[in-house]
Structure formats: C-alpha cells, structure tokens
C-alpha cells in the first residue's frame, strides 16, 4: 500500500518548508531553554567539583559561601587542619564583580582568593589550559578563558592590576560567571577593604570618637585604625577528607566543637540546585509549558489547514472505498512527520546556536529524547482536530 502521508509531504514540501522552519525554530528554542536549565545545574555542579572540596566550613547559620554571605577568620583554617579526618584545608574568598581587561573590555567574573603556591589544596584551579599556577603573593591572576583574557593580559580588580599568568577552562560560578583566581591577601583586600576616601573618612570618625581616642591610653587609636584597614576574613574553609573517612563523620566534630556550619557535597548541591536556582528553574519550566502549548497550536493549525485544503481529495478517497482508519492514519502520519522534521531542524538549530549563548547551554541526549517524545505526543494530539474534520467529510462531496 502506498504511504499517502509521505507522498503528500513529498508533493507539497515547498509549501511546508516554512512551516518546518517555523516549528523547528520553536522546538530549537524549547530545547535551548531546557539546555539553559541544564547548564545552570551543570555550572553549579562544576563549581563544586572544581573546588575539589568534600566539606564547606562556613559562618554558623549561613548557607555560604555561594548562596549567602559568610565571614570567618582566616586563622580558623589551622584549627580545622588539626581536626580528625581532615586531609587538607584551605581558606577561600569569593566575590563577583565586573572586571576590566586590557582595552577596556568588561566581563562579569567571580574573583576567588586562594593561597598561592599551594596547588592541590581545595579551591585551587585544577587543570590549566595554558600558563602556570599562582606563585607570587601579589598581583598575579589565573583566569578562565571565558573571561576573554589571554596570557600576559592585565586585569583591573578594584585598585590593582593583575597579570594573567595562567588560563583555566570551565571554572565558573553557580551563575555561570567565569572565575579569576588571585592571591588570598589580594582578594581579602579587594573584598573587604575600602577606597582611600572612605579610609580617611573612617580615620577622622574614629579619632573623633572619645572611646577610641583616649589621651590616657596612647596607641589605642593607632591600633583601632590599623584594625580597620586590615582584613583577616575569608568566606569559607574548604576541606578535603582523608582517605578512609566519611565526610559526614568529619563534619560533625567541626560543627560541634568549632560552632560552625559545615556542608557536605550533597548539602551544597541541594543549596545550589534546589534553592539558588529554584526560581530560575520554575521560570524556565513555565516557558517550556508555554512553548509546548504554542507548538501544539501551530502544529494543529498547520495540519488543520492542510486537511481543509484536501477536503475534495478526502471525499474522493472515501467515495472510492478508503477506510476511515487509512485517512486518519494519513493525517496522523503527516502531523508526526511535521513534528519529526521540525524536531530535526530544531535540534540542529539549537546545537548550532547554543555555543553563541552567553550562558552555558547544556544539550543533553536525554532531554533531546524526551523532547522528541513530547513533540510526537503534541503532534498526535494536535492532529485530532484535523482527523475529526476529515472523518466528517461526506463522500457525496465528490459528486457534483
């Protein structure tokens, strides 16, 4: 038996071309939206994986360092290093800012403060695609290639310029911003210290405060003012657990004896995926539902219009004894064919434009399979209206 649907599509492909492109772009946008969500989840997981940490020690009662502000003193790391089951521990600071590269080009980046010369500690950039790790205590940076920086470039962070000595790849924040690693002391200064005008203002205020400027206590004012311009704070201490120990078991004494909040990898995933990007995920979910409804409406309209254009042929087919099932099957196959071709166009389009998107778009095969199944289901449902019309066609319409 001839495949009537295929022959009709072959015959009228030129007319259908724009429909395929339109539907394909719509499906491409849908796949991309799903890819944006997957990219957000992957960014969050990449952030955790790249840190190399098993535990995140943060300020008590906070969900830091990525979801909330967290401040710890930087000497805390030494006492944590001495806790049972801790293999390595390292201070770390994170803050997101607008950086300026050479030529005035701006980029959003997460600046990470790490101890230089200690590659292998948690929080350090792992594999470098070019250059070397930080070795000096000041004014060197390792940047993710997504910042657009190259080896030898200088990048302005707050009041200082930093030379890019190494490049990493796929080191991003949970928001997808590329990372720039600088020395911890520089990062503490950049994060916590104020500009000169503010410092002068603070000094004047402090010296005008009789509580700090006591004639009977020489040196108090200097001590207070020095304290104001030095920062000993970090956002978190990252911990690697020694072999043979469970992260949860190591976390417990830190929680109990140091009065800090400690998160394991799964806790941190929950914070990042279930809490930090939950609103964005719901937003994307809403868009996906709207896009599915619009796709269904478009497929229904195309198939309905195609069927209305064939009423006479359908009447002839019915008159010459074609079964209703054959006619319904023809329309269903055309709807599915439209969906399949639209999906292929959409998948190709999404694959081509995904790398151009500013945020990471992760197109997973499982999403493509799910999207394909959803497309077929939507097309099948959308064809029911046209099938209903076709089955109501009176064979007598073929007779004048």
């Amino acid at each position, binding site marked *: 038996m*001839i495949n009537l649907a295929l022959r009709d599509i072959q015959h*009228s492909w030129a007319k259908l071309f724009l429909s395929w492109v339109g539907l394909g772009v719509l499906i491409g946008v849908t796949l991309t939206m799903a890819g944006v969500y997957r990219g957000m989840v992957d960014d969050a997981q990449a952030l955790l994986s790249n840190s190399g940490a098993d535990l995140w020690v943060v300020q008590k009662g906070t969900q830091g360092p990525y979801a909330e502000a967290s401040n710890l003193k930087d000497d805390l790391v030494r006492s944590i290093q001495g806790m049972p089951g801790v293999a390595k521990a390292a201070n770390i600071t994170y803050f997101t800012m607008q950086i300026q590269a050479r030529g005035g080009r701006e980029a959003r980046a997460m600046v990470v403060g790490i101890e230089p010369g200690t590659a292998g500690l948690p929080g350090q950039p792992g594999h470098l695609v070019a250059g070397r790790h930080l070795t000096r205590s000041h004014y060197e940076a390792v940047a993710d290639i997504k910042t657009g920086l190259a080896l030898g470039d200088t990048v302005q962070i707050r009041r200082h310029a930093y030379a890019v000595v190494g490049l990493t790849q796929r080191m991003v924040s949970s928001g997808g911003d590329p990372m720039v690693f600088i020395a911890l002391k520089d990062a503490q200064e950049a994060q916590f210290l104020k500009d000169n005008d503010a410092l002068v203002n603070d000094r004047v205020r402090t010296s005008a405060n009789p509580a700090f400027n006591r004639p009977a206590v020489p040196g108090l004012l200097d001590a207070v003012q020095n304290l104001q311009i030095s920062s000993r704070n970090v956002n978190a201490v990252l911990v690697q657990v020694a072999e043979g120990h469970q992260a949860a078991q190591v976390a417990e004494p830190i929680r109990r004896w140091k009065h800090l909040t400690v998160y394991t990898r799964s806790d941190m995933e929950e914070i990042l995926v279930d809490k930090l990007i939950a609103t964005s995920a719901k937003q994307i979910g809403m868009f996906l539902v709207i896009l599915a409804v619009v796709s269904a409406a478009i497929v229904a309209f195309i198939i309905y219009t195609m069927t209305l254009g064939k009423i006479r*042929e359908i009447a002839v087919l019915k*008159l*010459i004894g074609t079964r209703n099932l054959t006619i319904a099957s023809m329309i269903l196959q055309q709807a599915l064919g439209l969906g399949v071709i639209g999906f292929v166009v959409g998948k190709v389009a999404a694959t081509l434009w995904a790398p151009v998107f500013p945020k990471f778009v992760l197109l997973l095969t499982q999403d493509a399979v799910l999207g394909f199944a959803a497309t077929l289901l939507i097309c099948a449902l959308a064809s029911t209206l046209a099938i209903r019309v076709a089955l109501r066609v009176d064979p007598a319409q073929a*007779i*004048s």
Partner: protein
Amino acid sequence: MTTSTGGILIENLRKVYGHGDTAVEALKNVNMQVAPGEVVGLVGPSGSGKSTLLKCLGAIIEPTSGRMTLGNEVIYDNGWKTSDLRALRRDRIGFVFQAPYLIPFLDVIDNVALLPMLAGVPNVQARQRALELLTALDVAHRAKAEPGQLSGGEQQRVSIARALANKPPVILADEPTAPLDSERALSVMRILNAMAQQAQTAIIVVTHDEKIIPCFKRIYHIRFGQTIEEKGEGRLLS
C-alpha cells in the same frame, strides 16, 4: 420481481428527505435496468433527482424503500442493506466525476493503482493492472506524471482508468464530459463504450451535455423524481 443477470437493476426506488410536513420525495418509484456492457444516459433538469439517484446507486445515501441490485448482488431491499458499503463502493462500483478529482500528490499510475491496493492487491500487481488500463486508454506515456501536468482530456482518461481498476460490474459517471470540447467529449464516450463492451460493465452516465446525448442507445429521463425510458440514437460511438 425482475431477475437480474448482472448490471444494474433498480425497482420501485424511493427516497424521501426529512419527515412530516417538511418531507420531500426526491425519488418516486424509480425503475431502471442497465445490462452488462451497456452505456445508458440519465438526463434531467436540476432538482429532478439525478444526484439523489446517483448517490443511492453509489451506496452513499440509503434509499427509503425499493430494491437495488448491482452485478447480481442485492445491495438494498426495502430497509435491508449490504453491511459493508465502503467495500461495496471500492470493489463493485467505479466512479467518474465531472472533474477528474485525481489525487494530486500521487502520480498517474498510483492514482489508478490505489484502488486495487486498497482492496489488498499487492503493489506490483496493482501497478501492472494500472499500466494495462493506462495503455488501453492511451495515457501510459504519462504514467509517471503528476495529475497537474496532464491535459483535461488526459486527466479524464486517467479517472476512467481508475474507475475500471477494480473491474467493477458498475460504473457511475457524473457529467464526465462537461468540461471537455466536443471532440474530447465524444472520445470519452467512445472509451466508456469500449470499456463497457470489453469488461461487460454496466455504465450510467448522468449528463446535461447535448453533444453526447446522441451517443446513447437508451436514455432515462428523470423529472420530479420519476424516470421515463427513451430510445436513443446510439451513434457516434464507433
């Protein structure tokens, strides 16, 4: 009751549309007989009941009463009807329309082969049968063309081939020559006549077309739902 020997036999056929005060009797005790191999004309003014009779014969609508026999098979008898009207239309009735109404997305050979395929004939055999018919109707050279690429006369010959594809005992032709000029109209009538002779098919041609009326040996005039048989000239067919 008349005994059928194939062809078409219609006895006391009535068709009433609507009920009560709004009832319209479109056919009133129509009687017709067309022998196998015979081509008869059915003529009448608009509203006379031609289309209703054609739809009853084509198993598209159900008569109110009477009896219809197509090719030795009773298809309707005072309320009783054959169970599968779709299969009846496919296997036992060929249709030729005023416009050819070929399926535009199938090529010529598949337009003809579609009917045998619908009846379950394998594709190769169906296409073989279609090619034989197209050859007989002198359009085999256009077998791979699309309907839109054919002339009006060629399209009508293809539609005749399609009507003959399942070797039906009956062909119903509804104004088959209306859009054609005299020469092509006569050509179509000659083809129908030849096919009727060859396949022993009973053919009813519904027409208004004055130029083909002399072709029929017998003509049924239908007026106010009743038929009157008349002898025709039966010329121009050789």
